[in-house]
């Protein structure tokens, strides 16, 4: 099984590398991404990019989002692309198991996405240490948390993307559906957070007071655990659903 997953991953990477008219163009694109997101942004943000509690703050977030957007076409291409280029049926007619095909594709995209994020973030650390004077700049807890969070975000987007791509007849349709499917829930979470904040401000102290007291007394620990579990579950849920829906006999649409 692992060998088959690796076979699919290798194929995906080779296709990605050969995407343009030449490999030189692909590597030039990679160089540009690292130069902007991994060197220019960290230098613009300075020491706080690595040591700040926000894990690189706005610069870190831009870097992650930039890479995610670079990877999104790959996700949309996962199955819809194979279907559009008339290779899906041959792939499904091969000896490879359902799981090997699914995990191979997911693994290849996550590895590229998160690999690029790691590359840009470590490039940022190196750039900061080379350019800025003073004590060595080491990544803080926020930096590590943001880097781990980027992996979860990658997993979530790839899971949603694959889920959408499984049934989409073309890459274009998969991309459009994926945008709403992936970013809709994220926007909803942000909106609900803002709403909760506003409501908390508007509620009378008689209601918010006991909650605040409980949080100050250490009652926040279960909340953090709950939030942590939700953070892990949200990225994994679309993948689990994709595994459930990946059935050869339902993938040929015509």
């Amino acid at each position: 099984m692992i060998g088959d997953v690796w076979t699919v991953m290798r194929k995906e990477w080779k296709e990605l590398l050969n995407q343009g008219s030449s490999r030189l163009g692909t590597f030039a694109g990679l160089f540009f991404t690292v130069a902007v997101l991994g060197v220019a942004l960290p230098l613009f943000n300075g020491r706080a990019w690595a040591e700040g509690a926000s894990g690189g703050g706005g610069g870190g977030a831009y870097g992650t989002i930039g890479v995610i957007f670079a990877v999104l076409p790959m996700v949309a291409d996962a199955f819809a692309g194979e279907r559009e280029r008339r290779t899906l049926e041959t792939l499904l007619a091969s000896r490879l198991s359902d799981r090997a095909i699914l995990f191979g594709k997911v693994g290849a995209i996550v590895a590229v996405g998160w690999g690029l994020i790691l590359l840009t973030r470590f490039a940022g650390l190196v750039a900061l240490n080379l350019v800025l004077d003073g004590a060595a700049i080491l990544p803080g807890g926020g930096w590590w948390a943001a880097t781990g969070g980027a992996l979860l975000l990658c997993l979530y987007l790839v899971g949603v993307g694959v889920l959408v791509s499984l049934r989409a007849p073309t890459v274009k349709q998969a991309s459009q559906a994926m945008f709403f499917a992936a970013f809709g829930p994220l926007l909803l979470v942000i909106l609900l957070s803002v709403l909760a904040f506003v409501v908390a401000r508007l509620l009378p102290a008689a209601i918010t007071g006991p909650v605040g007291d409980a949080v100050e007394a250490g009652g926040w620990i279960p909340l953090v655990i709950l939030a942590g579990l939700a953070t892990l579950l949200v990225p994994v849920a679309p993948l689990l659903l994709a595994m459930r829906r990946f059935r050869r006999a339902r993938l040929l649409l015509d």
Partner: protein
Amino acid sequence: MPPCPGYGRNEAAPRPDGTAVAPYRAANAVGCGGSERVTTPTIEVDDLGRDFGGFRAVDGLSFAVPAGTVFGFLGPNGSGKTTTIRLLLGLLEPSRGRATVFGHDSRLGADEIRRRSGALLEHPGLYERLTAEENLDFFGRAWRLSERERLERGQELLRHLGLWERRRERVGAWSRGQRQKLAIARVLLHRPELIFLDEPTAGLDPVASASLRHDIAALAGREGRTVFLTTHNLAEAEQLCGLVGVIRRGRLLALGHPDELRARAGGPRAEIVARGLDAAMLARVRDRPEVATAELRDGRLLLDLRAGADVAAIVALLVGGGAAVEEVRRGAATLEEAFLGLMKETR
């Protein structure tokens, strides 16, 4: 046991050194009253059906394909040929009935079926961003061939198909025929026991088509592999297949050896080219008991004969009447005529 007549060229495919190979009789077991070797069917289909919404793509198919046979699955566009292949490979689930391949139900044992099969489907199914070598490497890995096997077998097939010089080029830039050849290499790479070929000669030049036909014949005749072939080229089917099924609107119209199907389309025929043929002579020929129909066209006498007809007697009649006979050709209905007849009957 009666001898099996005319089994096409797959009967004795020549080896590369030019020596003949013993005929593979198992391929001819169906429709000719027996064979030297009894083989279990590679494919067994029983009342197989598949609906897409309200559309019935495959409707109650039942047939069996013995191991080592080239099975020709013939039918017009949209008749259900590709859907049947998809059902056999477990890429679609049947709405009714069942299909077993190598004894495995296509619903439950599709992984095993695919492991032992190779399929060239409607499209070549090649990764156009990859080179020929990379494509074969991927599929070789998918079938868990060792690195040595992948290299050796890949080289052998690419050389055989005349693609070796272009092995490091991306497939996307290739012509349709070259892609089709590479797709055939992909199918044969892991030496499958069962080979599905959906219109394999489509897009190939005449030389490549002839070469592929020879290869298909050798696969069944020499290596005992089963080939499930769909084609619109009826001459090709006639030449290659030990068993033919004709499908239309999802239903099987006929099944048998090409000779059987041809026999159903009509009895023996003769064409006599002669000078001095006239209406009176035609009338006398028509009166002969062994002649079913006779027609005079461009100085040629076209005859549909009854079984056991003596053409020599007809020639003697013509010569006696003063005609100068130049050429006599005997024949039978072609598979194409049989096929067209079936299509006409069910229109």
